[in-house]
């Protein structure tokens, strides 16, 4: 067993940290307040190769693993979660293409994602289908050489910005198995019948675009089916086994940031004639935060390393996801508490971290669903 990172991994981490520190810090508060983003930052990140490092070299990617992608994610989120998400979510859906897409589909989309010429999103959740995606009713019907898609999606990351959207559609409603009814269809967002409206008023990660989609008689060629017809649910699970890893990394990055802010503040702030950091209550809290954050990182390092070596451990990935998300929420809460009244003001980063953290326990599988998966591996 060797816990050391190789030189290349250390260099990737250092480069990601340097870029995020240089480009994110001055803009984070502005984007958070205005629910805005500057796409030039994403373009710059693409130019430097930080976006989609897991995409194979054959499609202009770096051909690294999900571990390296997660390392970049952790560093970006440690500087600012909202911008980290706005930059790195632009490949969300490429994992499905890599796993199940045809050669033509991969050639058409993947190189553009790496080059910063296109964004992809994936829309699964619907007003009446969240943790149970088999309830999705957005329907795709074959009509000659086309799929005709009707329905609506909600909370679609980059729904308003993406050039391509991977839609989770009901294609075989009468199949006796609810796990055989859906399929993924790749949709260019300039197709007639695709309408998106940006959602406002998010609690956190406000630099990142989230939209509601309305799909009316949207037609794409039958070749735009990704993977196998009726296999959408299983493909979705395979997709989540990749993307949940970078959620873990997001949680670890956010928790690190909460710890850094706490250390800085409690060393500088004096009460009762001594720095807050000299009180045992503060010290125990910091020790717990650091321990749990380290544990969360080790969980995702292991899960990602196993995945990159061809061993997909569904239960381990689920453990890493809920644990690192919950830890991020706890650390942000503890950090705000240590800041007292200052932490309640948005000029202090901990306020943003507190708001940004919560989504981690919700998106790409709520922590309850993750625990259901873990329990499933224990009780089978």
């Amino acid at each position: 067993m060797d816990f050391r990172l190789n030189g290349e991994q250390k260099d990737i981490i250092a480069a990601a940290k340097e870029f995020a520190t240089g480009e994110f810090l001055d803009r984070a508060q502005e984007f958070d307040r205005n629910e805005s983003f500057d796409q030039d930052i994403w373009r710059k990140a693409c130019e430097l190769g930080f976006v989609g490092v897991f995409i194979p070299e054959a499609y202009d990617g770096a051909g690294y693993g999900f571990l390296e992608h997660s390392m970049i994610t952790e560093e970006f989120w440690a500087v600012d979660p909202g911008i980290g998400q706005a930059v790195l979510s632009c490949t969300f859906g490429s994992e499905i293409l890599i796993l199940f897409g045809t050669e033509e589909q991969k050639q058409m989309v993947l190189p553009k994602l790496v080059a910063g010429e296109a964004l992809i999103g994936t829309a699964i959740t619907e007003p009446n289908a969240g943790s149970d995606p088999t309830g999705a009713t957005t329907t795709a019907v074959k009509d000659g050489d086309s799929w005709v898609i009707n329905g609506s999606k909600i909370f679609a990351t980059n729904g308003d910005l993406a050039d391509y959207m991977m839609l989770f559609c009901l294609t075989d409603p009468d199949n006796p198995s609810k796990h055989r009814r859906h399929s993924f269809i790749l949709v260019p967002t300039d197709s007639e019948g695709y309408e998106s409206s940006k959602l406002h008023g998010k609690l956190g990660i406000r630099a990142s675009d989230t939209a509601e989609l309305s799909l009316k008689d949207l037609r794409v060629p039958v070749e735009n089916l990704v993977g196998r017809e009726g296999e959408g649910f299983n493909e979705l699970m395979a997709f989540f086994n990749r993307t949940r890893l970078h959620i873990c990394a997001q949680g670890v990055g956010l928790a690190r940031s909460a710890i850094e802010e706490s250390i800085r503040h409690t060393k500088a702030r004096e009460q009762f004639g001594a720095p807050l950091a000299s009180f045992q209550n503060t010290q125990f809290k910091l020790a717990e935060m650091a321990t749990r954050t380290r544990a969360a990182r080790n969980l995702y390092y292991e899960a990602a390393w196993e995945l990159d070596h061809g061993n997909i451990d569904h239960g381990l990935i689920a453990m890493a996801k809920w644990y690192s998300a919950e830890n991020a929420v706890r650390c942000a809460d503890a950090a705000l508490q240590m800041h007292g009244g200052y932490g309640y003001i948005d000029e202090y980063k901990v306020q943003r971290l507190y708001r940004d953290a919560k989504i981690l326990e919700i998106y790409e599988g709520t922590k309850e669903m993750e625990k259901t998966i873990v329990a499933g591996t224990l009780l089978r």
Partner: protein
Amino acid sequence: MNIIVCVKRVPLTQEVDLEIDESGKKIKEDALAYVINDWDNYAIEAAVQLQENLGGEVTAITIGSEDDEEVLRRALAMGADRAVRIDPGELVTDGYLDATILAKTISGLEYDLIFTGVQSEDRNTGMVGIMLAEQLGLAHAAVTNGIEAEEKAAKVFVELEGGIDEVSRIQLPALLTIQTGINEPRYVSIMGIRKAKKKELKVMTLDDLGFGAEALTPQTQIEEVFLPPETEGAEMIEGDAATIAETLIRIMGEKGVTV
């Protein structure tokens, strides 16, 4: 235009409470994080820019342990063509020894320019570059904040006191110590990191360079290292601008400054 850049990994000391070790002659460095010396980052960028415009090769050199290769990999990722690490083994070097070891290493290489940072963030002596030029018998310019290279010469901008620039022509080969702000160092890119993996990183020992043990005696002895004593807090001057100005002039007068 072949360029050699001398780089160094230094402890990150900002926002850190430094401690002196038991010997009283050293800072405790174990728990510190390390980064590239800021000046050297600008030196690498300056070298890579010249190489991109004029062709030739950039070689990055450091003296240090395997951990210090991090700064060489950085230089390679930024565009340097090859790197050399001199492993000093157990030898603890000072500025003079660094210059001596670098001189011996470089004397076997082809070059038009040698860049070093003006100084290093750890020792801040600012002497290695100049001593290196002396040992190699080269012309040098210190605190360079602009370079326009030609065939056999370079126009060099050097920072003097009071924000004045001195412009001169220097015959090549020459050594320049590079000031921060001379350019905007690029970010290390993922592509750069992948390319760096394929570039040569040569490791040499002092034996490889042909040093006998007696040749390497430090010329500096540190007697004591201490933290600056804590002084009284600053005096805050309050009032409107005129009152503040008046008070300032009075205080400066009391301290012997004629205004």
